[in-house]
């Protein structure tokens, strides 16, 4: 339980951002982050230290994102714990919003790759999460960043 609480504390925001980059919808991203932690909780006893725990969690989270298309109707809104705190929407600055909007418009797997890169994950680790070679990841990240810069430039940001 303590292990789970620590993981939850360390990774909640990171996983939330990954989901947010994938769908660009704060409520949905929160639901998806929670689904991720449900899987983490269930699979934690099976986790052996052969992999980095971060890699393991990001794999679960990104796979959950990829399966999102299937789950669209499975978790009716409001079934997951509601957020009682009356929160102001963080990250409401236009530049941040625009970044997430641009990322959510990329092809699905690119969204995952760039989100991990922006989360400061080493490219070698991204390669093991996604299952592509490191050089392939490097090329993709370069291309995605170029695309993002173009979009920002076009938008006059």
């Amino acid at each position, binding site marked *: 339980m303590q292990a789970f609480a620590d993981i939850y504390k360390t990774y909640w925001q990171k996983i939330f951002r990954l989901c947010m980059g994938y769908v660009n919808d704060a409520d949905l991203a929160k639901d998806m982050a929670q689904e991720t932690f449900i899987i983490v909780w269930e*699979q934690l006893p099976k986790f052996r230290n052969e992999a980095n725990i971060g890699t393991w969690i990001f794999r679960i989270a990104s796979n959950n994102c990829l399966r999102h298309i299937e789950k669209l109707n499975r978790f009716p809104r409001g079934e997951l714990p509601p*957020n009682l705190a009356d929160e102001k929407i963080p990250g409401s600055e236009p530049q941040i919003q625009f970044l997430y909007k641009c990322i959510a418009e990329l092809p699905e797997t690119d969204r995952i790759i760039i989100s991990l890169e922006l989360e400061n994950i080493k490219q070698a680790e991204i390669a093991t999460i996604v*299952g592509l070679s490191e050089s392939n990841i490097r090329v993709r990240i370069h291309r995605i960043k170029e695309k993002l810069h173009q979009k920002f430039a076009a938008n006059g940001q």
Partner: protein
Amino acid sequence: MDNKINFKDLWAKQTSIEPNPGDLLLQISKMKRSNLRKLIVTNLMLVTVSAFIILIWIYYQPQLVSTKVGILLIILSMTIFLFAYNRSYTLFKEDINSKSNTDYLKELLAIKSKQQFMHTTMLNVYFILLSAGIGLYMYEYTSRMTIFWGIVAYGITLIWILFNWFYLRPKQIKKQQLKLDDMITKFKKLNNQLEA
């Protein structure tokens, strides 16, 4: 190109208030219970029906082989149905969540095509065995009736079987298939992104 934009900084500024992990765990146990309940109820129902049929066999001691074969076919059809039902439940229990995205998508596609097979083939086998079983089972009792009532009894059963075969079964299969086909196409698309 404007290189002044620091995407990493912008990225990290997006945060969300984290829900209480206790609530989450509560939700998990609730969800698990309701899934398990559905599984148990379905299993229990079919086991009860099978037990009931066996009781009939013991109490009424059928004379003809056709009746006994009929009973066995009915039970077999339900066993197959249960097997398929339970299997599709456990397909996702296998731990594929922590594989790399590439492997995960491959596994997911494999699972989807297994489900496709089970939904069509197993459902067909179930219907055929069940219909044949009922037809055989009825023979002994119908043969004691007058021809008129015998025809009525078989006629009604036949109509019910035909209704199942030509209306309910295709409808069920089509519903599942549409969902699965759609899903498979989407997963293939994702898979292609990684192979490109």
